[in-house]
């Protein structure tokens, strides 16, 4: 290993089997083989039903470096992390680690609900590889950091879930690792504890601890990481600067790819049809779904009722993340919810039998990412869609050009953004 390199992964691969029965058979075969001391020569080959969960991944990590591990769900991040943590044995390649590895993956592993916080500190600490004497020394610091106060001698069962996580985190941080593996756990606890965790991690990094950080929050990756590793279907798609890695990630999720993957699905009664759905930057071309971060954009679509029976319909538009999490709903209707009373934010727009809706979204706070849009129309009084189109369109919020904009949009918090609606 080169100077200062604390962890190097050399072309590591890991295969799994999709079929349970086959996996059982292979497992028994492999165990027998290794028992009689035969080193398998066919480990690099896939048998029927197997696939590479991690495929030829190689990188190096130096002291004080932070590597962001990104990729879509199922791209092999957790498997890779488990190999690095020594839980899974790689099927090919080699991992060399210098120093102690600490994992913030499963906080409070092995906690026993009936045992007190004090007992669990010793239990969990030893599971993480600390000696009892070592825990004796760090005990006060752990209790202090976890901030569990008089609950120390109460069974962990009586703790709130936040307290349990805090205790787990406090113990894990005390194991004083040279390499820290973090799997999205920084996003636990309340805001003040999160800040404390963050500061703690940062101070460890400045003291020379190397870190591998798995997260779906690209803003955190970019703020925290010096380098990035992008996994795609188990393969190493990119290894380099964190910034570029994140951009590649968005590129991968990008427009062409995405629209090819998700085609619109019609749902509802079929009494309304939608067409010409597009999302584009204000002032841009309706064909271009790439929107600069922070810029206003337009969601536009045409609708047509087969037969318009009522004047009490609601138009519903959902903006979702690529993975399908609701980000924002835009609802408006033809008449007030409650007769004669219009709520402050209620938008009333009468609909014709057919027409085009244009929603102008102002000052959106969406972090660079791909989003999807669902649209639908339903009567106000019945919760059945007259017609709806899931995954009607997708759009990309593109990367900002300057560092300054990162700071501004880095922390994506999507709260009700304002919009207005025109129907023609």
């Amino acid at each position, binding site marked *: 290993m080169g100077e200062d390199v604390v962890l190097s992964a050399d072309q590591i691969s890991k295969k799994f089997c999709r079929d349970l029965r086959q996996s059982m058979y292979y497992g028994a075969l492999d165990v027998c083989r*290794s*028992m009689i001391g035969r080193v398998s020569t066919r480990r690099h080959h896939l048998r029927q039903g197997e696939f590479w969960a991690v495929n030829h991944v190689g990188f190096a990590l130096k002291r004080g470096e932070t590597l962001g591990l990104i990729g879509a769900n199922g791209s092999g991040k957790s498997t890779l992390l488990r190999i690095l943590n020594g839980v899974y044995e790689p099927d090919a*390649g080699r991992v060399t680690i*210098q120093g*102690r590895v600490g994992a913030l993956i499963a906080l409070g592993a092995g906690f026993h609900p009936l045992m007190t916080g004090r*007992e669990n500190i010793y*239990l969990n600490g*030893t599971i993480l590889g600390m000696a009892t*004497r070592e825990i004796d020394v760090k005990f006060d610091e752990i209790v202090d950091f976890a901030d569990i106060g008089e609950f120390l001698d109460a069974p962990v069962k009586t703790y709130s879930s936040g307290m349990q996580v805090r205790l787990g985190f406090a113990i894990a941080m005390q194991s004083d690792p040279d390499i820290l593996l973090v799997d999205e756990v920084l996003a636990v606890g309340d805001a003040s504890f999160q800040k404390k965790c963050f500061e703690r991690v940062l101070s460890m990094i400045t003291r020379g601890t190397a870190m591998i950080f798995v997260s779906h929050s690209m803003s955190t990756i970019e703020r925290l990481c010096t380098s990035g590793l992008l996994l795609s279907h188990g393969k190493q798609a990119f290894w380099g600067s964190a910034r570029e890695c994140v951009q590649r990630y968005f590129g991968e999720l990008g427009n062409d790819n995405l629209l090819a993957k998700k085609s619109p699905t019609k749902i509802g009664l079929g009494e309304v049809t939608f067409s010409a759905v597009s999302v584009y930057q204000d002032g841009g071309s309706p064909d271009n779904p790439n929107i600069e971060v922070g810029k206003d954009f337009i969601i536009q679509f045409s609708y047509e009722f087969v037969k318009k029976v009522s004047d009490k319909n609601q138009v519903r538009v959902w903006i979702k993340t690529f993975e399908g999490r609701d980000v924002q709903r835009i609802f408006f209707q033809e008449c007030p919810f409650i007769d004669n009373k219009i709520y402050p934010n209620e938008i009333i727009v009468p609909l014709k039998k057919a027409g085009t809706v244009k929603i102008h979204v102002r000052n959106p706070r969406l972090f660079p990412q791909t989003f999807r849009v669902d649209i639908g129309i339903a009567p106000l009084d019945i919760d059945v869609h007259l017609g709806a189109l899931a995954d009607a369109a997708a759009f990309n919020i593109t990367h900002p050009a300057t560092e300054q904009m990162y700071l501004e949009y880095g922390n994506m918090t999507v709260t009700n953004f304002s919009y207005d609606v025109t129907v023609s």
Partner: protein
Amino acid sequence: MLFLTQQGTEANITVYEPEQRTRMGFVQSWLGMARNLVRSRDLIYQLFKRDLLSTYKQSFFGIFWIVIAPLIGIVSWLFMNYAGILNPGDVGVPYPVYLLLGTTLWGAFMSFYSASASGLSSGGSLILQVNFSHEALIAQQIAQTAVNLLVNITTFILILALFRVRPQWTSLFFPLTIVPIFCLAVGIGMVVAVFSVVVHDVTKVVTSFLGLLLFLTPIIYGPRIPNPLIQEIIWWNPLTHLVGAARDVVLYGRIEHPGGYVLAVLLSVFVFLLSWRLFFVSERRVAEKL
């Protein structure tokens, strides 16, 4: 303390490679596992404490249950004795004593076996979350069993006193005679532990088979069986000698078949050492199947 941890970090280089342990020699793998056990002694202790105490945590009598349960057992033995249900002929000592010692030893064998067989699967999610020496799980389970065995033996001493049986001076060797029973049980258990993670039926098959062995071991009946074929089968059952010797040193002051006993001891030590190696080289491979 700071000094200690820093020193630990300087020298520590860990390598993960495919089939690392398979490449190890026999002796090397025994030493490796022994080293792992010594290193994880704190962990074994903590897991042991967790499981021992947690069983009795939300209970009124607490840890006293360890003693209460066998005491109730004694009462039932006494009842059966005075009711005259237990009388299978002359075994030289009161039959309940003969039976209780035999079943205690058999129970020790079975629980050492199942403790080690369930070692890996009892680790479950922990194995998938944290990297630690899995041997600790088995050692921990065995320690629980050992505690139970100690309690059972204490109960047995009470029974001896109740029936006014005076143990032979050779009882001093009793702890030694437990060792081969332990070796055979844990030896079988460790192999089952690895296989049962991959194929769940393995535990069931082996456990039922071992259960059958109870009837091929002179435990509930005396050692003299008229049928020569059955006699032959019983003689080739290693547990006949292992359990028999442990019982004989306490009750009769001799070992009935010294030749058979030596063979059985050699076999169990061999099984133990072999399976220790088998466990060590293959247990890492099964983590992903948990």
